[in-house]
């Protein structure tokens, strides 16, 4: 017994200090996590975003094959509903993993920021459809979706509003270019941007 105790003491002395430091790191990490989770919406979908991007590229291709503008509109509207459903499902899934309710305070803030520009987008699309201004639809969609991402993303990870701003810029470019390019820019923005930023979110923010 007397022989054993010094050895144990020795080990104890070596391990204990490291544990205190590790515990300090753990405490700081915990503080940060609680601050983030209470103030930020953490369920922005990464993999879901990539899937939305993939469907958008398919939609851009199918839409470009349409002869009539009305059919072109139907293709993109179908894609919009599909992407919305994917987004909702992915958020629901991710919120379960992240342990944050979809009805928590930050999630509500995200929704209140995200929804108004989308509602405007639907209303403006109906207006444009009534007056048959199909050529301005693509830029308007990109800009309003971008606005929704920027305003909703204010309550989320920092990369989210950045993606929104790129959408807005893409919309501006689409206005400057001939209307034919609108469809390509839709494919590039809703397709590639979602895939690139989705991958970043999935890698950095877990899923």
């Amino acid at each position: 017994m007397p022989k054993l105790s010094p050895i144990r003491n020795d080990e104890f002395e070596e391990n204990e200090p490291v544990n205190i430091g590790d515990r300090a790191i753990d405490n700081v990490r915990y503080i940060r996590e609680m601050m983030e989770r209470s103030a930020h919406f953490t369920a922005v979908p990464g993999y879901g975003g990539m899937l939305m991007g993939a469907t958008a590229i398919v939609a851009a291709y199918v839409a470009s094959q349409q002869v009539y503008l009305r059919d072109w509109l139907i293709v993109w509207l179908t894609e919009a509903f599909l992407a919305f459903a994917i987004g909702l499902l992915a958020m629901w899934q991710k919120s379960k993993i992240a342990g944050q309710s979809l009805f928590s305070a930050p999630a509500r803030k995200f929704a209140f920021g995200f929804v108004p520009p989308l509602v405007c987008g639907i209303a403006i699309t109906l207006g444009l459809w009534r007056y048959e201004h199909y050529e301005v639809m693509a830029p308007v969609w990109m800009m309003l979706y971008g606005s929704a991402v920027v305003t909703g993303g204010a309550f989320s990870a920092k990369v989210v509003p950045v993606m929104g701003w790129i959408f807005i810029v893409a919309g501006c470019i689409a206005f400057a270019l001939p209307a034919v390019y609108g469809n390509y820019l839709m494919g590039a923005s809703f397709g590639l941007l979602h895939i690139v930023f989705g991958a970043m979110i999935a890698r950095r923010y877990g899923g």
Partner: protein
Amino acid sequence: MANKNLAFKNTPAAPQALRIEKAAGKVSGELDKVIHERMRLGIISALAANEKVSFTDLKKLLDTSDGNISVHARKLEEAGYITLTKSFAGRMPLTEYAITKDGRKALGRYLDHMEALIKAMKGVG
């Protein structure tokens, strides 16, 4: 005691270990027990990041029971770190917590302590 000192002198890691021990000792002497507890640290952190947080949101965030939140919140309230306001949202009673100046200072001190500990540990590597 004698054994302990001997152990320090004989192991190569001894001086550094001593340094951390010192830092840790200094810190634990001053360590704020009110917010060192996990649940209370969580509450004060969430309140530091938000103007107000409701009882229900805190409960969801920390994933715990009503009783647990109220007990720990009361401790923080008694220390003067947080305040609570009770009101009604329609018919439902609404309890909201907010951090006080003292509470923010206490969290700042606590973070300083943790920083000192981490620095002491990094000095070893």
